[in-house]
Every structure is written in C-alpha cells, then in structure tokens.
C-alpha cells in the first residue's frame, strides 16, 4: 500500500534562506522597474522578485527551462503567483541585471506587477473540460497578445486590471469578480435523447437537478421534457444525465462582463456585470472578442482617474455613461431576471441622460 494523506511538501524546505531569515519581518517594498519587486526587511535584507508571464499550460521542457534559469540566478528557488505568473527570487542583487537580460533574450515577458494588467486566470476549455462552450486557452492567448504592453508596463493604466476567462457559466476562476471576464454561454435549450435517457439517466435526479423546475417527466418514453419558458440554460441537468446535450456549435459563444473586484481596498468587493451578452465563437483568434476587450481597456484607460479600477470608474460615472462611452448597446439581456433581479432596479432619479 502506497503512502497516503501526508500532504504537500513542506514549504519550509522550498523557500530560499533569505525568506526563511526574514519571514514575517518584511518592512516595505518598491517596484524599481515594471515586473520587478524589491522587498526590504527590517533586518536590512533585500530580495528582488522578477515576474514573468507563463502560458499556464506548459510542457515538461518549459518547466526545465525555468528551472535552468532559477538555478543560474536564484540558487534554484522560484515560485508561481496566484495569477499563474512565475517569480524568480533573487537574493544576490548582482544577479538581477544578468537575469533580466537573459529573460529578455529568451523572450520571457517581464511584468504583471502592481498597476498593470496581469495574466489571465482561466479554465480548461476544449483542452480538457467536458462542459466547455469555448476554448479558454485560445481566448487567453488571443487577448493577452493585445495586452502585452500593459503587462510589461510599456503603456500605463490607471489601476490594476484583472481579466478572467471561463469556458461556461460555472464561471470558474473568479469570473464573477474580475475587472473583465469572458464567459462561454449557451443560447439554446438542451436536447433530450429519450432513448438514451431511458437507459442511462435517473429520472428523479435529473428533475431535481434543475434549479428552475423546468424539467418534468415524460413517462411515455421514460424520459424527461424541458420547458423552454423556464430553462435558463445553466447546463446543470447535463451534468446529471448524459443523454441531455446542451452543446450547440452554431449558437454557443461568449459573453463579456466588467467591473468586478475582490480586493477590499477603498471599495468593497464587487461582482462583474454584463457588458456584451453574446459574441460568436471565432477560433482561432476570436477577433471580435479581443477587439471588444481592447476597446473596454482603452475606454477605461483613457477615462478613469488615477487609481480607479474598472468597477470603481463605472460606479463613479454610472452605467448609462459607461455604455455610451464604450459604445455598447444596452439590451433586455442586461436587465436581470434571476432571483435577486429586483435589487438591481434603480430606485432613484439620480442618473445621467
């Protein structure tokens, strides 16, 4: 019997000596250049962290590439960030510039620190998820190709901007609280293969899986019927009964959401809100999506005040002004009609024409 339940490796054995020595004793940090953090300890110790972009989906060769670099400049120590960037931890300041030079030479993108657009947090998409409506990796690559200058700090932005991509309405990856989110959506109700359902699905479970009560039994064929008036296309039933299919390559696509955040700084965390209800899937480069994201970033960048995140900016100017500035049509899709819809209605005459 193999060993079980021993947990991950102890971080104590994975952190560099400078961190062990100054653990809990850091005093402040500066950002001497984009992509580089300089942490100063109360002891006087100085640690540089150099952050580079990662495609997240990587090969073992890439892993060895970054190991080579870490060994050369960082005594083999490195880490990853919560947004899937890589950080090289430089204890010896004399190695900083040579590291930066090598990273540049090898086309690593240095950036994503502080006031910038960081790496996209995203889901598996067609690469490995069974409910993927779109390909998260392809969207991410296509969008980030346009955001490189904001990642590396070549172009300044008013505040942090965090983008997330989810391949379905499960919205994995904090899509519900990101400055910009791209989310795969269905627009047609699921189809039931009655013959298959009668064989492989538990009818009561399938009915219970529907959050809106849209599924009722179809006893004649030992299957179920979906009420199109009530179905909100969440796909929950397809997870319970494989005879129900919701994938629809012709009508599936992506939606874009804006203004969410998780930080408590200045303002409370906020949900992302619908900006663009639907854009068709356009592999391999999703040109309409990337242009829409580019437009959103640029409208924010040129209009927001220094320090205003996307949602804070929109809250100050109002959604009516946002839709006008971003040149996005406001439609019935933007009106909430789910459980807490009423709480989104505007109960004041305070608005802009």
């Amino acid at each position, binding site marked *: 019997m193999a060993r079980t339940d021993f947990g991950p490796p102890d971080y104590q054995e994975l952190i560099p000596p400078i961190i062990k020595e100054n653990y809990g004793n850091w005093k402040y940090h500066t950002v001497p250049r984009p992509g580089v953090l300089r942490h100063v300890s109360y002891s006087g110790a100085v640690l540089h962290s150099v952050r580079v972009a990662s495609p997240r989906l990587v090969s073992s060769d890439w892993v060895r590439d970054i190991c080579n670099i870490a060994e050369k400049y960082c005594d083999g120590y490195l880490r990853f960030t919560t947004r899937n960037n890589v950080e090289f931890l430089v204890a010896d300041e004399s190695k900083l510039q040579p590291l930066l030079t090598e990273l540049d030479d090898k086309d690593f993108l240095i950036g994503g620190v502080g006031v910038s657009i960081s790496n996209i947090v995203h889901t598996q998409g067609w690469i490995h998820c069974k409910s993927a409506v779109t390909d998260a990796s392809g969207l991410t690559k296509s969008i980030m190709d346009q955001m490189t200058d904001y990642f590396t700090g070549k172009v300044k932005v008013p505040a942090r901007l965090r983008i997330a991509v989810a391949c379905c309405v499960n919205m994995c990856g904090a899509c519900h609280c990101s400055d910009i989110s791209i989310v795969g959506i269905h627009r047609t109700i699921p189809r039931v293969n009655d013959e298959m359902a009668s064989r492989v699905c538990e009818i009561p479970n399938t009915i219970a899986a529907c959050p809106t009560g849209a599924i009722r039994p179809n006893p004649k064929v030992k299957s179920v019927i979906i009420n199109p008036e009530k179905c909100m296309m969440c796909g929950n039933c397809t997870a319970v009964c494989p005879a129900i299919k919701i994938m629809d390559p012709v009508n599936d696509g992506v939606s874009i959401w804006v203004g969410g955040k998780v930080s408590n700084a200045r303002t409370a965390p906020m949900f992302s809100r619908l900006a663009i209800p639907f854009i068709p899937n356009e592999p391999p480069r999703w040109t309409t999506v990337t242009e829409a994201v580019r437009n959103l970033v640029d409208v924010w960048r040129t209009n927001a005040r220094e320090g205003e995140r996307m949602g804070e900016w929109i809250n100050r100017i109002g*959604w009516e002004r946002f839709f006008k500035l971003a040149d996005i049509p406001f439609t019935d899709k933007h009106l909430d009609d789910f459980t807490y819809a009423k709480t989104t209605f505007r109960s004041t005459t305070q608005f802009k024409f």
Partner: protein
Amino acid sequence: MDEKKTPLLDELEKGDWPSFVTEIKRAAAKNASAADLLAQLETSYENKEGYWKHGGIVGVKGYGGGVVGRYSSQPEKFPHVREFHTFRVNQPAGFFYTAEKLRQVAAIWDQYGSGLFNLHGSTGDCILLGTTTENLQPCYDALTECGFDLGGSGSAMRTLSCCVGQARCEKACIDSMNIIRELTLHYQDAIHRPAWPYKFKIKVSACPNDCAAASARSDLAVIGTWRDVLEMDQDAVREAVDGGFDIFNRVIRKCPTEALEWDSGKRELKITAEDCVHCMHCINMMPKALHIGRERGATLLIGGKAPVVKGAMIGWVLVPFIKMEPPYTEFKDLVDKITDWWADHGKNRERVGELIERMGLSAFLEAVGLEPLPQMVHAPRSNPYIFWKAEEVGSHG
C-alpha cells in the same frame, strides 16, 4: 350628553403638541358618535386592543368606493359607533382651501357625521371620520352641492396627490397641481369603480426632493426633473460665500458625482454638466444662486409600495424623461398600457411592482412598448442566466 370618564386619554391632553383627544372631546360635546368614539378608545387604551371589525360593503349610489365601512365590535357598549363609516373626500390639488369651502364641509359633517376629520389621510384625501349607513347618501349629496367628490378606495386607482409645485416652489420642474387635476378628472371611473387586482397610486412631486414621497408611496411616481444644465447666478454664489457659507463642505463635497468645483481664483462655481445627476442638493443649499434647468419634464418610476405582502419597494426608473404638458396624452397612454397588462396578469392583491417582480422587467417593458435603458437599473445583471428567445438564435447546430 352623558360625560364618560377617560383618565387614560386625559393624559394625552398634557404636553405642548396639539392633542387629538382634545379634538375628540370638542366634537363629543355636541355629537353622540364622537362621544362613543372617545369612550371606545378609552377602552382600547385600557385593554390594549382595537374594537373595529369586518363589515359589509357600504357606499353611495353609482360608486364602488370612496367610503370605508366600519363597525364597532362592541355595539352594545358603544351604540353610537355601531356604524362609523369614513368618507374619503378627494382633496383639492396641493391641499389649497378657502375658509369658505372648509366651513361648508365642516357644517355638512356636523349635520351628517361625527364632526371629526383627518386633515388629511395617508393617501391625501380629506377624511370625514364616522357616520351611519343611513347618512351616507344625504351627506354625499350635500358634499356634491358644495363641489366635493369622493376619492378612491379598494382595488381602484387611488386618490392622486402631489406637492405644492409651481404654486409656491421655485424648484418645480413640472406643474404638479395641474397634472393631478387633469389626471384626476380623466380617471374618475378608475377611481370610483374598483376593477383592478389591487390598488394603484399615482403621486406627483415637482422635483427630485420628492416632497410627495411619490417614489416610496405610489405605484407610478411622476418626479419633475430637467435635462439641460442647472442655472447659476455667480453673483449670488459669491454673495453666499462672502456671507460665510461653507461652499466646500456643504456643497462641493456633498455632490454625489463630484460634478462641482469652486474656482477660488475666479471665485466661480463650476459644474461639469455631463456629470450632474440633478439630485437637487446644491440647489437646496443655495436657493438664491442655483436654479433648475430650462428643459423640464419628469422621470417616471414604477412599483413603489409599502411592505405588504412581498416586501417594500421604492419605485424604479421606468421612463427617464417625459415631457409633462397638457393634455398629457403620452402619459395617459402609458398608464393605460401598464394597467391593462396588470389587469390581465395580476393576481388578487398583487401590486403592479410585485407583478413585474414575478414576470420580469423585460416582459413588462415589452408589453408596454418601452425600450430597455441603463437608467432603469443601477447595474446590469451579474448572473450568467441570460434568457434567449428561440427567435433570436438559429436552430441547433
């Protein structure tokens, strides 16, 4: 008249505020029903409970409403309030009266009722408090002679009411009194003959200060506003500042959208017009210097109501801007569409706001022919459960 002892209520004749007990006693001195009201109320104060009960429907000829039937649950003890019905008399717009008219009403009510009034009831009516079933029709006839008609009750359009508006307020963006007058005349049938799922209230406030509490207390609120830039008299601004008015803390910092700046060099107040949400605050603070704009109309809000049953609502924006000029055709057409849809789909005792909550805002807007607008919400949806109609998408791939 038989004077009953009311030691508990007598306590409410103490203190500086005018006493309703004193008023009941004044009426009781010459009216037996007022005297029994006092006595029954004293019993309520003793036992901590009310003594009014369900009763049959009462009214006057030709009307389905306007009278609220009320019966004592203790008719043996308080025989003169065995029947103690209320007239809802439709108040004049803006609650303006002449002494002459008021005296006439007072005389009628001394003759046919208790001599007690509510000036005014919650909805705005002039309430004549307490009479018998027998006296209803002759009293109504006398009121009509004097020029007064009844207001609404039950599942009807309720008596419309408004703020004082252009009669005496420099902030009035619309003629609230004329609007109420014209609409009241237009909706006489809807007011007097209940035919809807529940009550329906319209109130008009001539500016966003909403002195008529329209957004909280009416199913359809009409609130005056303007859509150009507010007017500034820079001399008057300077005069206020020179007089010690703290423009920075009282005005600049309180502007909800940071639309105002004080240029201390030029000594001028500056506004970024496109940022103004016409909230009234700066105008309220500096009434001599700042004035409402010139392109005036109203914002309509739908759904305001108190909690029973599904929870309170403050009306939400339905029409950001509508011109409100006689004969108010566009407004009346919209009201017809709203009440038709509600009458078709509403359950018993379901207010229009609750129906919209149940059916969805989009369905409602489609039914009444309005486009969705960002002004209707404080933010778009955050959940991904967008409803797509079959006709909007292709067939399955």
